[in-house]
């Protein structure tokens, strides 16, 4: 089996090398985490609310087939065309077929991590279709031709200066101008024209409701709505895990989502799409792409509860200091690290190790996914599948040999301490010992605890 290189570690090392930028990134995201804390503190029943959300999602997953059938029936009754896609390629083809039917060449798209996961944009662009991401952050990274580094704040890794330069080049803003208000206004004018000219609007889905056959899309900018309501065709793309049983359940999730994501009480627009507008066409694409495989795994299925709030990213001390791109997957951070290996175990074998297992992610998760436990379990799966570096496995087998033989352990401990005392420069040599690049090794004592203990006992008994 092919083994993965330590990609996250390498990318993270490059990121951390610019310490000032790392501090800025860390503090920016911690600020968002703090806003989340303040928002959660306003809800005395916060923890019970998380529990309800978790239970609703667990229930929905345990009855997923029936809820999808109910959703499909009700959506069709409402006049929505429902499509099913087994994987990213099928999803992209379905979208493309709809576009072709309408001779559509200009698309506006609001944020959808699913389409990111399926690589829809590059596929459509290759077919000669203009795809404009309309969320400001997404438009920024689209102009920079890079992937999002965060699922809620896609351009969080960029400073306003970068965006000023980018907009100067692409939108003709004044050179050197980097005032966020000014830049946002420029983007508004630029994108307003795109909204007005679009043939088709593509959106993601935050929640689909089996009972009503409708779905909810949340934005702060209003970009999803502007696109959808001005276009003749609306294509909404969702992973099959997004379905919830009833509209009343939205009350639970909408109280949690924005508070967890940005510390807002609710997103500015929580739009409930039920039926196409007169003269409009509405499509709903239901995508599997590995989700049924994840559902079949008792250890990992509850990752499908995720509502994509990114609270786990904002709190993760590793994410904050390594940036979203170091995760090289559509969804970064702790949740990405437990979703990605299900899609490609070898490609993403490094991600479950990009964590100290501190557990903060599981605590902020509004739907109580046991993220850090799943990181641990993925490590076991990857270890067993031979998807980690062979040297690591040899090292670990050696370690067990050492620790299961107390005499060997005693000898090795003594020898190790002796070596460190005799050649301290060796132990502190960064080339031989990665620990020592930025940290000193502990000063080895003369005696281990057990040697001391044996000596004491000898004294008392002798």
């Amino acid at each position: 089996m092919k083994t993965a290189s330590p990609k996250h570690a390498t990318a993270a090392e490059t990121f951390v090398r610019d310490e000032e930028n790392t501090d800025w990134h860390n503090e920016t995201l911690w600020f968002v985490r703090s806003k989340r804390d303040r928002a959660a503190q306003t809800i005395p029943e916060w923890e019970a609310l998380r529990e309800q959300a978790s239970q609703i999602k667990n229930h929905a997953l345990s009855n997923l087939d029936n809820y999808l059938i109910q959703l499909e029936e009700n959506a069709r009754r409402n006049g929505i065309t429902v499509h099913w896609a087994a994987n990213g390629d099928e999803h992209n083809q379905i979208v493309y077929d709809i576009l072709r039917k309408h001779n559509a060449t200009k698309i506006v798209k609001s944020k959808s991590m699913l389409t990111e996961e399926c690589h829809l944009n590059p596929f459509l662009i290759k077919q000669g279709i203009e795809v404009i991401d309309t969320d400001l952050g997404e438009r920024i990274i689209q102009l920079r031709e890079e992937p999002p580094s965060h699922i809620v704040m896609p351009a969080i890794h960029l400073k306003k200066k970068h965006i000023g330069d980018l907009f100067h080049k692409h939108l003709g803003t004044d050179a050197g101008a980097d005032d966020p208000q000014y830049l946002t206004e420029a983007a508004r004018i630029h994108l307003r024209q795109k909204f007005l000219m679009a043939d088709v609007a593509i959106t993601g889905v935050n929640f689909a409701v089996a009972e009503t056959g409708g779905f909810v899309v949340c934005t702060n900018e209003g970009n999803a709505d502007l696109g959808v309501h001005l276009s003749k065709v609306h294509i909404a793309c969702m992973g099959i895990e997004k379905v919830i049983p009833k509209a009343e359940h939205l009350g639970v999730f909408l109280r949690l989502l924005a508070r967890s994501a940005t510390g807002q009480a609710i997103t500015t627009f929580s739009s409930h799409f039920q039926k196409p507008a007169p003269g409009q066409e509405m499509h709903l694409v239901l995508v599997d792409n590995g989700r049924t495989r994840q559902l079949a795994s008792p250890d990992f299925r509850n990752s499908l509860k995720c509502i994509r709030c990114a609270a786990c990213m904002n709190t993760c001390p590793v994410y904050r200091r390594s940036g979203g791109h170091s995760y090289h997957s559509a969804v970064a951070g702790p949740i990405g690290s437990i979703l990605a290996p299900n899609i490609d175990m070898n490609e993403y074998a490094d991600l479950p190790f990009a964590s100290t297992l501190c557990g903060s992610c599981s605590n902020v998760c509004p739907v109580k996914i046991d993220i850090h436990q799943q990181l641990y379990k993925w490590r076991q799966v990857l270890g067993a599948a031979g998807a980690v570096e062979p040297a690591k496995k040899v090292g670990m087998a050696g370690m067990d040999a050492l620790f299961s033989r107390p005499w060997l352990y005693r000898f090795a401990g003594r020898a190790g301490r002796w070596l460190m005392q005799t050649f301290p420069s060796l132990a502190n040599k960064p080339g031989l010992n990665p620990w020592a690049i930025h940290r000193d090794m502990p000063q080895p004592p003369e005696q281990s605890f057990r040697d001391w203990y044996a000596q004491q006992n000898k004294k008392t008994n002798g």
Partner: protein
Amino acid sequence: MNVGLFIPCYVDQFYPKVGIATLRLLESLGVNVIFPMEQTCCGQPMANSGFQSLSVGCDRNFIRNFANCDVVVGPSGSCVLHLKDHLHSDENPAEATRLRNNVYELCEFLTDVLKVSELPKARFPHRVGLHTSCHGQRGLHLSSMSELMAPKFSKPETLLRMVDGLDLIQLSQPDECCGFGGTFCVFEEAVSSKMGKDRVADHLRHGAEVITGGDMSCLMQLEGVLRRQKAPVRVMHIAEILTAEN
């Protein structure tokens, strides 16, 4: 009650004084302590690297050593959590379960089992920063967590408050991870070191003279950074402070 003293391998080798302080603290509280001489490691380094399956020998050795103990107490939240969650035996599952249910981190053993309410001899007149270790906190629930909307408490802090003269400082991020993370500290060296630096900075900014905690692995990480920076701040395990009498 026979209390088996579990001294994690790296504490045994690098920080014997922590083992000594733990033993003295327990004995001063009237506990009958046994130290099984053939104990080694809890198996966590292998398991966290994805090879829990390779820690069979390690688990077997642990179970053999602590078979005669009613409870096991160790001065490390991380190792204790690992045992609690993962100690496993195909040969003797009942014994593995018994030990999993009867292993305690030192602070929780003091506050919950011994119900220690005062440490009359303890005196430590210094400004102390408490590093809250993730596995002890979020795994063993030794203290409340900043992410959860729940009443505040801290078992280590409760104990430190019993020490005469001790001035406990407040931190900006009281439960941010130190970045040690087991093998993470070498495989993700860059991020790990940066996390350690940032954690140390929080303590230094608030005027700590000593950084303490219940997990020597975190403290080893912080010590590594402090010594590299030649900062005039020491790390001490909480057992050392609770037994300090100067």
